[in-house]
């Protein structure tokens, strides 16, 4: 495929891997966090961590939008899905995220009309086609997906579609990063910045990472060569004792972001005073609700929800795993109370979470096959 294969060239990958090995000081252990779940996916898909020297470790960050939705919000979604006449729509990977008792997939099996969509516009189309039903879209994601939800709502308003509402779970990436960086026991050396989020918000919001916390961050694309190059750039910064925001993904990320998208977002959304993150607890000003101008499209206002906070079990140590303080297996509930079948924390919810990967692949995740 043109414009794709160029970024997946195995020989260039080997060359970058060699440069990374040369840039890493042998007596130092590097922990680099990839903030975005999209990066985690690429790292897994291409086996990128396998190309890194043993002393360069990747830590999966809080940027998997599905994993961070707390159980109480899933319960609210399920309650709405069970309302008579409702068609409940969401992205496919949201279907299996556990609430306190059930998943949306369970709700579907119990008779709720739950449908998977690839875009909020598909949900709006379903609303148009079913004027006698209430169509609800369960919106999730960071600044990457928020603009498409915003545009959909603008269109719904312009067309006067009254049977369409949205449960807004959109979150923002900077507050949880700041929360991680505030931690006194943080063990991270640098960050691979979330390229897709940056196409919307630009590079500037990440200046605080080098400025306030002394850690380098490189905004990265999602192809394997992008990620390897970003890791190299981080190691080069550390080696030269530089500390700044660098943009590896210049072909897509403009310095100032996408002003048009930001404008639409500020029209449709307003900041929530605080929001709960699975595994990380409450973080202030870390999520979006619908603005007052769009209140009529707010499913939380149209439908009764239990709105009960379901606390993460106390023993869950996802926060420590995310900060790189402990390994998955060092968590008190890992492998006993918390398993992929009955996940407690964010790191176990998605198959690509640090704990789930470690649980599924165990010792082979590290040894791997001697190919």
């Amino acid at each position, binding site marked *: 495929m043109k414009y794709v294969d160029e970024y*997946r060239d195995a020989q260039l990958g080997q060359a970058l891997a060699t440069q990374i090995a040369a840039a890493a000081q042998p007596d130092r252990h590097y922990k680099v966090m990839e903030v975005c779940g999209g990066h985690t996916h690429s790292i897994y898909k291409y086996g990128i961590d396998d*190309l890194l020297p043993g002393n360069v470790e990747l830590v999966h960050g809080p940027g998997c939008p599905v994993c961070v939705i707390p159980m109480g919000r899933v319960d609210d979604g399920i309650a709405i899905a069970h309302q008579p006449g409702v068609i409940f729509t969401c992205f496919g990977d949201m279907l299996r995220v556990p609430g306190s008792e059930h998943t949306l997939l369970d709700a579907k099996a119990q008779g709720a009309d739950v449908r998977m969509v690839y875009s909020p516009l598909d949900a709006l189309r379903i609303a148009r086609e079913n004027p006698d039903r209430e169509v609800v879209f369960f919106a999730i994601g960071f600044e990457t997906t928020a603009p498409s939800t915003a545009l959909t709502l603008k269109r719904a308003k312009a067309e006067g579609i009254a049977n369409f509402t949205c449960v807004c779970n959109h979150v923002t990436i900077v507050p949880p990063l700041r929360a991680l960086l505030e931690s006194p026991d943080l063990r991270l050396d640098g960050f691979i910045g979330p390229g897709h989020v940056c196409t919307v918000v630009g590079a500037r919001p990440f200046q605080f990472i080098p400025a306030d916390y002394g850690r380098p961050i490189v905004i990265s694309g999602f192809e394997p060569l992008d990620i390897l190059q970003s890791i190299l750039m981080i190691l080069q910064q550390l080696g030269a004792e530089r500390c700044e925001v660098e943009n590896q993904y210049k072909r897509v990320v403009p310095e100032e972001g996408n002003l048009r998208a930001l404008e639409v977002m500020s029209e449709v959304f307003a900041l929530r005073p605080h929001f709960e993150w699975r595994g990380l607890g409450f973080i202030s000003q870390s999520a979006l609700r619908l603005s007052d101008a769009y209140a009529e499209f707010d499913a939380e206002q149209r439908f009764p929800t239990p709105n009960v906070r379901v606390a993460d079990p106390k023993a869950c140590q996802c926060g420590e795993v995310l900060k790189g303080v402990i390994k998955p297996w060092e968590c008190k509930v890992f492998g006993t109370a918390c398993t992929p079948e009955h996940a407690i924390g964010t790191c176990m919810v998605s198959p690509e979470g640090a704990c789930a990967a470690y649980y599924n692949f165990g010792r*082979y995740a590290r040894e791997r096959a001697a190919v």
Partner: protein
Amino acid sequence: MTVTDREERVLQIIETARAKKARFRDKQITLAHGAGGKATQTLIEGLLVPAFGGETLAAMGDAGTVEIAGASVAMTSDSFVVSPLRFPGGSIGELAVNGTANDLAMAGARPRALTVSMILEEGLDASVLRDEVQAIADTARTAGVEIVGGDTKVVQRGLADGMYLCTTGIGAIDPRAQLSTGGIRPGDQIIVSGPIGEHGTAIMLARNQFDLDAEVESDTRCLWPAVDLLLDAVGAQLHCLRDATRGGVASVLNELARASGVSMVVREADVPVSPVVGAAAELLGIDPMYIANEGRLVAFVAPEATEAALAALRTVPGSEHAAAIGEARAEPPGMVMVQTAFGGRRVMDQLVGDPLPRIC
């Protein structure tokens, strides 16, 4: 206790838990139970096999075998609920014949006879039924199987989405065949009979959910001619066969790695995927290794027989692009690894969710 000891203990807890027999504890059936991945496995191993017992069933081949009057007979049954009923390259009627014939072929049996049960929905257009009956007849003729019986039931409107089909087939095990799910040995080469993921992709696009247009057709086809030539070419050096239907090639490899107590290593760059399927999978974020096929087999052959097996397969229409994609190894048992085209390595796990329900 040192840190390493603690890690080892945690790993042992997990491995003990995983080695335990699957138990079916789910409170209700979800679509995941039909997807061919982990939930399906729990349903079969945790509920069906313990309840029905028997060595043949426990071997979990595509078809069971019974001895009747001194002859080894393979027998199997399959249901078809695909939506839409017709799609580029095939229809439910073709799938119903080829699907069951292929399960027999994978046991090393020449498909001989089928019964066909139809569950029809009140209000079904008779022309739709006529077309499918014709498709069943034509496909059976091509496959060389006789339809010897059947059943028809009609259910109320809304209960069957047009029609469901169920076929049961039998055939005599070919004397050249020595196949078993536990028969894969370290060193065996993994062969696929052609480009993967075409059936699942064709269905996905036929549903028009994605606003994608592409020329891709289902690969539905009877695999006995391919098996026949493979047996001629390599005989007992062919250790195991599977058709990679629900859950795709990845699911077949995971199941068989467990059944044979071997690991598998797949070279991603050698796996044949057509550009159209590759592009659709890229856009939709699906790995072609998990997409269903209806006319692709995975063969495990002794290393010295690889070239002969490939040469034989490539003479069969539809298998011209057969390729060796990897090999079985001794360690670690039950695991499937991928050498990615990019040069890294990763584990290829069983399917957890269902990328696409009702594909066959």
